[in-house]
């Protein structure tokens, strides 16, 4: 059939191959989606299994038990508070890091800063340095000196540092794409460096901001080691620490109950994220249309 010289059939053949390609593509993508979702669906199922069923190993339970959710909500009565702490710490970390990164990135590219080469070198070197474990003691000492132990807000300071270097480097490369001429032009027009940044720089770097925000969100949202070490009051702690406490071996926590905590803990993030995603896409599309 492919040997035919008729143009028409050739086009048909091409179209059919294309369609097959689309189908195969969606099959493969959906296989990946399943790989991501099936483990989470299994947790959802686990959270409504009766306890003996959960320990029998079979996939589908004989008896459902929906009481695990009320059990964990009563047992961890600080859960909403911990969720709030996580949101608060994450939001503050993201905001502060982003501001630091924008200022530094702007300065490193568009301002004349003596010694900026060394600053960049240090930032890059720090990316490859595994400092986490042993620096913990130092960080503890610093926090203690500052009186920030056992405060939710105190976590923000070390958290900002977790991704600061990479955030500055991201912003630096973003600002490199903002033409020098543009910045210089604004300054010839009499804008100071701050005004230039605010009126000309910031509007041009929105997608860089998005990247920096994501990077910091993911790290701060899931951070465990610092949070476990630097806080001790249940009401002060972030969600991951409280969750880790619940699954610690000695506690009276059967698998389905931990699964219920699991579902409660990750659902708000996913839902909020789903909604916000839509808004964000809309905003972008509107903006894109105007352009």
């Amino acid at each position, binding site marked *: 059939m492919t040997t035919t010289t008729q143009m028409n059939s050739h086009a048909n053949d091409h179209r059919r191959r294309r369609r097959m390609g689309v189908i195969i593509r969606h099959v493969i993508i959906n296989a990946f989606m399943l790989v991501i979702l099936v483990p989470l669906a299994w947790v959802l199922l686990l959270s409504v299994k009766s*306890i*003996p069923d*959960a*320990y029998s190993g079979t996939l589908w339970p004989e008896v459902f038990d929906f009481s695990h959710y009320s059990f964990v909500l009563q047992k961890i009565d600080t859960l909403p508070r911990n969720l709030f702490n996580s949101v608060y710490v*994450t939001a503050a970390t993201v*905001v*502060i890091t982003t501001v630091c990164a924008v200022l530094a990135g702007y300065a490193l590219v568009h301002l004349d800063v003596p010694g900026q080469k060394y600053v960049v070198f240090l930032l890059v070197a720090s990316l490859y340095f595994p400092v986490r474990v042993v620096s*913990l003691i130092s960080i*503890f*000492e610093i926090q*203690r000196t500052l009186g920030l*132990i*056992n*405060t*939710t*807000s*105190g976590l923000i300071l070390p958290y*900002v540092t977790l*991704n600061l270097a*990479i955030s500055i*480097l*991201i*912003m*630096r*490369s*973003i600002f490199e*794409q903002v*033409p020098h001429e543009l910045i210089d032009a604004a300054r010839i027009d009499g804008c100071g460096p701050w005004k230039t940044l605010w009126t000309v720089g910031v509007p*041009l770097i*929105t997608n*860089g*901001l*998005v*990247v920096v925000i*994501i*990077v910091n*969100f*993911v790290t701060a949202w899931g951070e465990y080691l610092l949070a*476990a*070490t*630097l*806080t*001790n*009051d249940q*009401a*002060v702690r972030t969600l991951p620490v409280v969750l880790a*406490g619940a*699954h*610690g*071996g*000695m506690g*009276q926590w059967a698998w389905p109950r931990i699964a219920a905590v699991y579902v409660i803990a990750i659902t708000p993030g996913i839902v*909020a*994220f789903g909604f*916000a*995603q839509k808004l964000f*896409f809309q905003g*972008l599309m509107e903006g*894109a249309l105007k*352009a």
Partner: protein
Amino acid sequence: MARKDEEYLIQKDLYARLQRGQIDRRQFLTRMMGVGLGIAGVSTALAGCAAPTAPSAAPAASSGDAAPAAADAVAERPLTPTFYQWIEDLHPSIPAVNANFPGLNYQIAPVEGFGIERFVAEAKNSESTWDVYVGMTPFVEMTALIEAGVIEPWDDYIPQDVLDDLIPSIREECTVDGKLYSWPFLLDVVGMGWNAEMTEQAGIATIPSTWTEYLEAAKLIQSSGAALYGCTFDSHGWRSLVPYTHSMSPDVYTPEGLFDFTSEPAIAGLKLMKEMMALSHPDILLEGATDGGVNGTPDEVAFAARKVAYYTKYFNAPLRMAANWPDPSKLMMGGLPKFENGAGSTVFWTTGSCLFKHGKNKEKAAEYIKSLTYDMQIWQDSIAGTAVAHPGQLPPYQSIYDGWAASRPDWLPDFVGLITGQLPKARAITNHAFGLTQFQIAKPEWEKYLNGSEPDPMIAMQGAWDAVQAEIAKTKA
């Protein structure tokens, strides 16, 4: 894995292309939008909860939080105890005790996954956020806490009648250089638990009292098909090797306080483990899933999943796992079996309270701990179980057992009597800076015999001993 982030070069790539003239500025900017569109995802979650970024609005990071200002160690602070999380989880009536101490600043200790680091760091600054820590196990961390100057003895604060009421072996466990550094609270003893549903099905009517009987019963379980596996143990030394060794003889510690792996009783214990493994689940030697591998171990899963009949561990473990059975009352418990010619001892440890040297309210702390440890509701809940927990941990005081012997409460199960019979013979692991870690360091060595890579148990145990000595030499170097 800490996610370092890489995407900045995405933009770099775009820029390079811009410079090479492959795209013009307009395309460049449009594509930048595309980049934002592509990674838009997570950031938008934040858009819902964070204020828009404005350089002038960067909040001061240390703005006061609603947290209790525990760090401000002022003289007038209330009594501030801190508990290991699991103690609160397992003993739900602790809040009732706390209610008798108005103003008490009850806290959970920042120790999970990280041990005593916070306490030591504070002591180095001659301060302490807390007054008393409930959760110290003598052979695990007491030596370190004393060495680092974190804790001080209770002797000036504990009433004499309480001191005299401690079971002698427990008092010995908690004493260093004649001073009581741990006020014991919860007693764990290693004993035997079994699933009566399976033993009934296999037609086993007697309780094994020797290891020979134990292994035979376990074989019968498997051959009768009552369960997939006959018996199991927790491969961590202090939960299996040491109690088995003690059941032969508890006199296996060197003068400096280390476990003598090469002693005859220890070899006997190791051989017993290998015999048990033939009747057990293949993953028995693997590390557990929580708390640095020491909890959530394979034996717990096997017992909870009703795949094994016989189990030796501290009683809390079978009780906790049997709570997941359809009928938890099928759990039976008794003392640890012994070797025919053995001493019939076992291992116990207590979890107790230590007094922070730089803490405050020391008299008040003693008053609180006394009230806590003599609280009869806690003991009833611990031994008989409640809707939320069944720890099976026992009191450290002779007078409580005497009271139960004099008039037995209707909630008191039989196993308590069986254990208290063995308790006078039981021995704690000797306190030492390497009290716990010697078993973690040596485990791969003795397991060479268990997994078959070394046929001679003596050579394997010599390796265990050498490994510990090598580590100690590093400290002394």
